[in-house]
């Protein structure tokens, strides 16, 4: 992405060298190469770009069977309806709270883990810790939902048993159906699932740091803690910033697989309904296609805006995504 402008320049230079009338001939001569990419591009066109065209139904009253041009155009009706809907405040609030909490905890956690793993000199121990912390990444949300439900169960759930043994609680708590625990359970589970696997990126960044820096620092008498603070973290900054930008672009994606699984209990809707989950319910379950598309479009536009702003800010530090 960063070298896109360089590519464009190269392409311009190339097109100056070769007269334009040869373009078709050149294309035919490299037809076997083009055939490697054109089928894939056709699929991308069908499954990514046709749905973008389909976003037009957000401005229509979609009727089954009618084509996109034949529907009634209603302008911003569905957007206005969403803003005035009783669910609007709940859905927007939950989305922002859930995604902010996720950003706050799931983003720094793997960085901390990578820093800790880097201090381990016994390779065998390090390897075992890595293998075990990668494990939850490979479990499906369905299975994790089952495990968490069983861990937090009122009758004989491991967590309730443990807390009772330590006398923190008198009687078991029904964690899975009380709204006040929902965000905590959701964020903890997300950190638990991805902390190990996400640390791979940061470990790779640490592995690329010049060892001479540490030698020089330890000769100057810098402690391990000081070396982490003065060398490792600054050297990881480019990677941290790039993933930070991506995380901010994802701010409106509060995630929905995990929420759909953990909030199958309708009693939790006041805390669990996020934009994505709401779109699934009104769109797929209640067949309100135009209304749900309007909400989805609003979210997508806001996400791209957030990403662009985050990127602009990061560009000042010289580490932008594009």
């Amino acid at each position, binding site marked *: 992405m960063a070298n896109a402008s360089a590519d464009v320049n190269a392409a311009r230079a190339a097109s100056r060298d070769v007269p334009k009338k040869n373009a078709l001939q050149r294309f035919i001569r*490299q037809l076997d190469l083009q055939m490697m*990419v054109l089928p894939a591009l056709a699929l991308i066109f069908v499954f990514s770009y046709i749905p973008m065209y389909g976003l037009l139904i957000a401005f229509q009253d979609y009727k089954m069977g009618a084509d996109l041009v034949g529907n009634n155009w209603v302008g911003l009706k569905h957007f206005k309806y969403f803003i005035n809907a009783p669910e609007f405040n709940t859905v927007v609030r939950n989305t922002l709270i859930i995604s902010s909490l996720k950003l706050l905890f799931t983003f720094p956690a793997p960085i901390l883990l990578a820093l800790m793993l880097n201090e381990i000199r016994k390779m065998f121990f390090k390897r075992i810790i890595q*293998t075990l912390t990668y494990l939850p990444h490979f479990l499906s949300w369905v299975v994790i939902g089952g495990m968490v439900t069983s861990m937090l169960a009122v009758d004989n759930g491991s967590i309730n048993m443990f807390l009772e043994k330590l006398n923190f609680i008198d009687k078991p708590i029904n964690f899975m159906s009380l709204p006040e625990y929902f965000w905590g359970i959701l964020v903890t589970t997300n950190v638990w699932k991805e902390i190990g696997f996400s640390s791979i990126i940061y470990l790779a960044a640490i592995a690329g740091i010049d060892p001479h820096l540490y030698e020089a620092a330890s000769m100057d008498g810098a402690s391990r803690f000081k070396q982490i603070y003065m060398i490792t973290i600054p050297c990881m900054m480019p990677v941290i910033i790039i993933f930070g930008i991506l995380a901010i672009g994802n701010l409106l994606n509060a995630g929905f697989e995990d929420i759909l699984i953990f909030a199958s209990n309708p009693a939790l809707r006041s805390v669990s309904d996020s934009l994505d989950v709401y779109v699934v319910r009104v769109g797929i379950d209640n067949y309100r296609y135009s209304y749900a598309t309007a909400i989805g479009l609003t979210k997508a536009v806001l996400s791209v805006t957030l990403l662009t702003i985050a990127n602009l800010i990061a560009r000042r530090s010289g580490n932008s995504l594009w």
Partner: protein
Amino acid sequence: MTHYSFSDRFLVGFIYIFLILLAFTSFYPFWNSIVVSLNEGMDTAKGGITFWPRSFTWDNYKVVFEDSRLIQGFMVTISRTVVGTITSILFTAIFAYGMSRRELMGRNFYMLVCVITMYFGGGLIPTYLLIRDLGLFNSFWVFIIPSLVSVWNMIIFRTFFRELPQGLEESAKIDGTGHWGTFFRIVLPLSGPVVATLALFTAVAHWNEWFIASIYIMNEKLLPIQTILRQILFSNIATEQMSNMDAGAIARMNEVKTVTSKSLTTATMMVATLPIICIYPFLQRFFVKGVLVGSLKE
């Protein structure tokens, strides 16, 4: 490096303890589920099952493997994982090889077309209506075709192909081998680690995916195991699995008598998890090749 001060030792000691606790937390829920699945259901209901089965039995698994609905679900999952992974990796790798060639005309435009889809899309409902109009409802191919091309994987493959020594491909060109021949005879055999890693990630995504089936598939016979498992676990009917069993499984259950709905769902969960858990540790050393560090920023 040999000299550690007191505070350094304290720091390292703290890290060891913290990592052991973290690894324990990562592993315990999984281990506890294995133990529950291998314990007699009636006995589990008394509570206190943590690290080791108290009353060991294979009965839960025997009932699971008698249930034709679950077997069918496993078959769907295995088929979509095998077919989906092979086709997607091959298709995406060929695409990426084409995109990695500097002489490809329209390369920058093609790349722009790809990158836009990483940041913006039509979203759930327009995609849903498209899938319906394409006639992919209640079709096995809804698992395969929409996910045939992965732009992320294409970029990772492309980065890897570009780092291969240029000389190899040039010698192939002198021998008169075309792009397709070069890809299959030279590039693909040299790409073992990155193919293995991306194939694992793709396979895991297919194996664990449940949402697509929950909105596009109404035919019970085409539901993958994860979607069935979700119905069992979260249908709010405690005995959903038992009430939907077939005659063979019921006969087996009456025979063993100690199986409960919890022990049965836990065993089902484990069957739906173990294949993946047994594979990933062996590919672990390749993982770095499959993450996006170098590829995102070129």
